């Protein structure tokens, strides 16, 4: 009898973020250029399982996806019970930089989706020399809010259910049912108030309009990929953002929404593989 195992390996590592020790869970697969993957708000690293199972990617890239503290299998830092989780721009940047340092990754590529796409822009602004390339998926410097986030965390509405139901419309109608519902299940499993805490970063603390002058695409190429069915971070939001960044490359992806790598991995790789090819060739 043969055992069928995926190539993904999960590990824990502990490092300090803003002076607090955090035990962080990450998964990885492949070898080559380090490719760090940032999940969306209120979700976890399972969104990248298809990329980590794709030999066309893992034959050339060491794909690493970590659960942010408070998410997935990463615990909140000690003392969390007396605090309210609120992600800030500074905390998010430090989290990504601390993970890369803890894993001793040398000029990794970073790909981030949604809030991960937003922070990719800030990483480029602050640290273009630290990354080989940046990929923002569903990324924009700002976008219009479309619901009241107070619904996400209150005693008389199930948090997981309402989070999943809100974002369900961000999945494109063409996405396979199995991947649609897997994506939504991740939202149903988030900790109480965590999606809302992530959106503090997204809605309140990271209006980057006019503040991205530090991005050096000559040092660190920036690729922006946005799904046509994303009505949260719309293609127009991404195109407007790219207009302010000389050298940014934009692609609007057909038949995907806000969670391309998770909701429709087959469609997403049509757009991602050429980007990875270009990065590898530089």
């Amino acid at each position, binding site marked *: 009898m043969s055992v069928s195992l995926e190539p993904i390996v999960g590990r824990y590592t502990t490092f300090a973020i803003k002076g607090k020790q955090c035990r962080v869970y990450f998964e990885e697969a492949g070898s080559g250029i380090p490719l760090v993957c940032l999940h969306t708000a209120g979700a976890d690293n399972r969104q990248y399982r298809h990329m980590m199972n794709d030999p066309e990617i893992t034959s050339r890239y060491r794909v690493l996806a970590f659960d942010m503290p408070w998410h997935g299998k990463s615990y909140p830092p000690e003392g969390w019970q007396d605090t309210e989780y609120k992600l800030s721009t500074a905390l998010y940047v430090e989290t990504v930089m601390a993970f890369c340092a803890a894993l001793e990754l040398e000029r990794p590529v970073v790909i981030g989706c949604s809030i991960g796409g937003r922070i990719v822009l800030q990483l480029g602004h602050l640290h273009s020399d630290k990354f080989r390339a940046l990929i923002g998926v569903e990324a924009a410097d700002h976008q219009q809010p*479309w619901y009241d986030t107070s619904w996400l965390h209150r005693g008389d509405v199930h948090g997981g259910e*309402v989070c999943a139901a*809100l974002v369900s*419309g961000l999945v494109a109608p063409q996405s396979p049912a199995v991947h649609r519902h897997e994506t939504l299940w991740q939202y149903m499993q988030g900790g109480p108030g965590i999606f809302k805490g992530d959106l503090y970063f997204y809605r309140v603390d990271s209006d980057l309009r006019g503040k991205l002058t530090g991005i050096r695409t000559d040092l660190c190429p920036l690729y922006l990929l946005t799904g046509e*069915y994303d*009505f949260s971070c719309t293609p127009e939001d991404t195109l407007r953002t790219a207009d302010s960044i000389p050298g940014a490359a934009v692609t609007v992806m057909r038949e995907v929404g806000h969670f391309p790598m998770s909701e429709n991995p087959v469609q997403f790789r049509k757009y991602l593989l050429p980007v990875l090819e270009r990065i590898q060739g530089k």
Partner: protein
Amino acid sequence: MTSSPAETGAQLLQRFTQAASTFAKPRPVQVDMLVQFDDLPVLVRIRDGRVAEIVEKGVALQSWDFAVKGTAEGWSKFWLATPPAGWHDLLALNKRRVFTIEGHLHPLMAHLQFIKDLLASPREVAA
């Protein structure tokens, strides 16, 4: 069947009634929802996760928890087998101001996926 964007409120209501009358999920939903197709309102009573009644007339002075109102074009595109981007979801339509959502929103948000699925139930099946 292929939808025409020119469907009238009455035609849209007929499609909705046909699909929604048998809609049920194992969930304790008790809601009175007003749904409006262009200028035609109906009251949808949901009891124990099942559409118990769709009242087409006599809405005046009847109370309801919340209302979802949409243009004929909005409903027609929303129910296409593959709706165009931005016309594919209740909240996408609300964001583009083609639909409006009013009233006491707690029962809507507490059962959001149920309501979304109910309102999408007349959607055509992809060939």
